[in-house]
């Protein structure tokens, strides 16, 4: 099965994507991850202003068949959350890179892009 892996964002081995937008990063889960989870029925996001270290679990995504934590790929403070996915969790299935994004973090420092996977590296991982 072919999964959508757009070229622009960076990726993690744990199936999150990170997109740099000026001083903040937008984070979501990949097409592969949403497909693995199946029908997503509940998304729990942190409050704006919450601090996270890289590797902390910042969100919970529940599908009918499983519950999964989502990990912060970078340290930062929650600048914004996507409230739409709290009321319509299926957005994460339908548009994981677009309307189904999860949170935006204000970065502590610069984004160390070397620590992430590129689109082509991520494609290899999920093959």
């Amino acid at each position, binding site marked *: 099965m072919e999964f959508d892996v757009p070229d622009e964002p960076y990726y993690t081995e744990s199936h999150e994507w990170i997109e740099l937008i000026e001083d903040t990063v937008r984070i979501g889960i990949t097409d592969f991850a949403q497909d693995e989870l*199946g029908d997503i*029925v509940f998304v729990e996001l942190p409050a704006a202003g919450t601090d996270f270290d890289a590797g902390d679990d910042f969100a919970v995504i529940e599908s009918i068949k499983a519950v999964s934590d989502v990990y912060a790929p970078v340290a930062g403070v929650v600048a914004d959350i996507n409230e739409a996915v709290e009321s319509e969790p299926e957005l994460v299935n339908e548009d994981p890179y677009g309307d189904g994004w999860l949170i935006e973090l204000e970065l502590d420092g610069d984004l160390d892009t070397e620590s992430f996977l590129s689109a082509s590296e991520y494609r290899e991982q999920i093959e």
Partner: protein
Amino acid sequence: MSTKRPQLHEKHLQSGADFTDFGGWDMPVSFDSIQTEHAAVRDSVGIFDVSHMGEVTVSGPEAAELMNRLTTNDVTALDPGDAQYACILAEDGTIIDDTVVYFQPDGEEYLFIPNAGNDEAMVDHWTDHAAAHNLDATVVNRTQDFGMFAVQGPDAVESVQAAAADSLEDVSRFSTRETRIDGADCLAARTGYTGEDGFELIFDADDSEKIWDAFDDVQPCGLGARDTLRLEAGLLLSGQDFHPEDEPRTPYEARLGFVVDSSKPFFVGQEALRDADNPDELLVGLELQERGVPRHGYPILHDGEQVGHVTSGTMSPTLEVPIALGYVDAAYVDEGTSLGVEVRNRTVAATVVSHRFLQEHRE
């Protein structure tokens, strides 16, 4: 123990299904998405490969006696071709398994359906009991020989009728008829595990492909949708909503007293059930008031104190709210009682409702 596979394992794999281990069988958990499959069964029709279910035949002069001693319902009430739901109990009155008992249309043989992975233990139980009480009956495990599909949904009868050689529309609920589908013999039983009308088809496993292909215009469904469908209907899952070691429950605790015929002269567990019809804990349905998914083992709370636990739960695709089954202290089982479910260190408000969620929803 090696993993068993249904005859159509390769075919399901080719069609892109995801698989899961269930009762020692590698079975399709979904073909498309659980919600798509669930909706097909509620709105029109879906087909499930349930060849992991056990099949055991019991024949001989004392077959009825043996069946009646080992199941809670009264098999002597069955006419040829009829079926009944029953529990199989341990001596202490707790449920080992639940089953459907079919009295074959020829009136010669009983067929019962243990849950996946329980067939061998049930055959031993039957054989040992027959030997211990000198009952003349032949018990045969046919699980590997038979395939089983469930065609379920409001359009299921029409769909099976279109494929079958005989008239089936007048087969009543919990009754069966022998027919042929694309030349293959099968037993069509008006039973199911979804809360919808439909048939379960039992046939020679070698005819699996022929019969599956006769329904190629019907949505294939996996065990994921089977679970959400049965849960909405308030049907219990053996091994999860009761289990001989992990969740030992009497039929009364599980609200299955309607399949216990205590007027029978004897059945295993009868003595233990004699004064057990007013248990300390009872199965309830719960509807959560906020989003969150109640799952197996989550505590059920009243004013912060644990009064029970969840055995099954899901986000109900039909009701669009989270629902759960669980056992609760009998003081808190009245419908409308406010309880909570502890979902990962957070208490989510819940209300006790009828465990027949779907039926209530439709009324």
